[in-house]
């Protein structure tokens, strides 16, 4: 079954039930399931008019909106592959995504979509999504997700959290990530519930979070720790409406102490989960009491999760129906990560006797900045392209608000200031990848083999006030 067929079944069973509420400040409309289906038909008709057909890649450089939702479903009704990309990507990154994906169409401005349209019959599609993640070896990698991958993940989320027609999930996450798209948009819709669509969480939407929940009787939300930290700091426990029963969280570490503070303040239990783009999001989930273990990321569901290592702690690996077939046009990275029938996550973890997974570190170098991942090598390559930079090392600095932020150390053989180097990065990278600061050094520490000693650099940052 394809995603479009699954949506069609939902529409057929309850066409007049609400499916999408546009809760953005300039929104206001509510789509029933039948309206959503019709708008997807209109989007499919528009896409077909642009020459899009089965298997074609459509890059969507759009923020979260009903038009975005219609285009995603419209593309799937045509059998096309959706490539959602962060709208704040730099021109250089945009070119890369368009070229590497082999896009037939790049949508950068919301098009005027017809309200309905004729959709041709298409053969059963295989690929549904191409989601780009920062690459551990430089350029971003395009993760291929099939319809089966996405449906397996959606079904697990629906089953685990009991999503149904009464579910109203507030979606404040970026739909270009698997978390925002698959958990935030697809799972509630395909469960027969409602997506309450807000703008991506930002500075001026903090004060709207709980009022929007109250206005639309939201039952749950999906989040990342930086959103929870902002809510805890800036809003009051009494702001939380009674309709909100639980919150979901993933994409970055959630400390037990912080989780307890949030839950006590707002009276909302949080379920902390774990997954990645290559597994169509979550592979382990915490339930709500008593089926949860604070400090862990929950238990495997719908897939196998085990630890590769001689002892109880080792690299986490995953296999199951939601695991991607590999990276688009990148056989080398695919062979490294997908081997022996398992996806090797690069995360270090430990399973307890009940199967709860605790994450203890990263085998791969990555900086977790809020919900976003920054691979140091991508940042280093941009810095090394500057004519004055001869050595560059990017490491994680502790951050009160984001958990971690990238900081770069460079050695120069020409004139450049930290400000100029940050501006150089800003022109070439998505904003969250730009280093918080650039430090110019005479030399950088190296280990016995001559390799840069990034641990020493990170330790210096950790010791700073």
């Amino acid at each position, binding site marked *: 079954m394809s995603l479009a067929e699954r949506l069609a079944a939902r529409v057929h069973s309850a066409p007049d039930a609400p499916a999408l509420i546009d809760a953005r400040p300039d929104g206001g409309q509510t789509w029933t399931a039948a309206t959503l289906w019709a708008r997807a038909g209109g989007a499919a008709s528009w896409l077909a008019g642009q020459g899009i057909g089965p298997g074609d890649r459509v890059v969507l450089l759009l923020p979260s909106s009903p038009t975005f939702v219609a285009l995603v479903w419209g593309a799937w009704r045509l059998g096309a592959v959706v490539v959602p990309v962060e709208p704040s990507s730099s021109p250089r990154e945009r070119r890369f995504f368009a070229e590497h994906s082999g896009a037939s169409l790049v949508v950068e401005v919301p098009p005027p979509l017809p309200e309905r349209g004729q959709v041709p019959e298409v053969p059963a599609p295989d690929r549904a999504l191409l989601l780009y993640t920062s690459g551990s070896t430089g350029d971003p990698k395009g993760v291929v997700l099939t319809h089966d991958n996405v449906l397996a993940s959606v079904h697990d989320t629906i089953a685990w959290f009991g999503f149904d027609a009464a579910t109203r999930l507030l979606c404040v996450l970026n739909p270009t990530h698997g978390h925002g798209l698959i958990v935030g948009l697809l799972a509630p819709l395909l469960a027969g519930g409602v997506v309450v669509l807000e703008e991506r*969480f*930002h*500075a*001026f939407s*903090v*004060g709207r979070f709980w*009022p929007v929940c109250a206005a639309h009787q939201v039952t749950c939300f999906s989040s990342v720790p*930086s959103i929870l*930290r*902002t809510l805890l*700091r*800036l*809003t*009051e426990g009494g*702001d939380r409406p009674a309709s909100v029963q639980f919150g979901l969280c993933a994409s970055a570490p959630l400390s037990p102490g912080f989780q307890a503070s949030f839950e006590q303040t707002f009276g909302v239990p949080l379920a902390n989960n774990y997954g990645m783009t290559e597994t169509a999001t979550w592979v382990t989930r915490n339930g709500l009491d008593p089926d949860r273990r604070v400090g862990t990321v929950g238990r495997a569901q719908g897939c196998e999760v085990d630890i590769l290592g001689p002892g109880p702690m080792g690299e986490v690996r995953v296999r199951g129906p939601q695991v991607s077939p590999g990276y688009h046009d990148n056989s080398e990275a695919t062979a490294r990560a997908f081997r022996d029938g398992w996806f090797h996550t690069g995360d270090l973890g430990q399973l307890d006797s009940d199967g709860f997974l605790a994450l203890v570190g990263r085998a791969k170098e990555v900086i977790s900045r*809020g919900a976003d991942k920054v691979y140091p090598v991508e940042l280093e390559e941009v810095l090394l392209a500057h004519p004055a930079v001869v050595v560059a090392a990017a490491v994680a600095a502790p951050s009160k*608000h*984001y958990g971690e932020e990238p900081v770069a150390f460079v050695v120069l053989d020409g004139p450049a200031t930290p*400000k100029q180097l*940050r*501006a150089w990065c*800003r022109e070439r990278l998505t*904003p*969250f990848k730009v280093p*918080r*600061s650039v430090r110019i050094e005479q030399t950088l520490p190296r280990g016995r083999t001559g390799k840069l000693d990034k641990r020493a650099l990170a330790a210096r940052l950790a010791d700073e006030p």
Partner: protein
Amino acid sequence: MANDLRAALREFILTRLDPGLSADDLTDDTPLFGHHGVIESLAVLEVVEFLETHGGFRVKPHEIVEDHFGSVGRLVAYAQARSST
């Protein structure tokens, strides 16, 4: 008082939040947050803490809007209004 706060706020933004601007480029009207803003969205927490420390008042969540936090000029006007109530 407004000029003291403006100067402290500008220094805080330029040094702590590092928007990649020179002092001359950060005017009273430079957009701070949002699509054309020079500061990362969730750094609003740091601005709130700065205002609360320097202004001696508690920022309410519904006050974190563009009219109050959109620029240095608006922040100063907002802080003055809050301090006088």
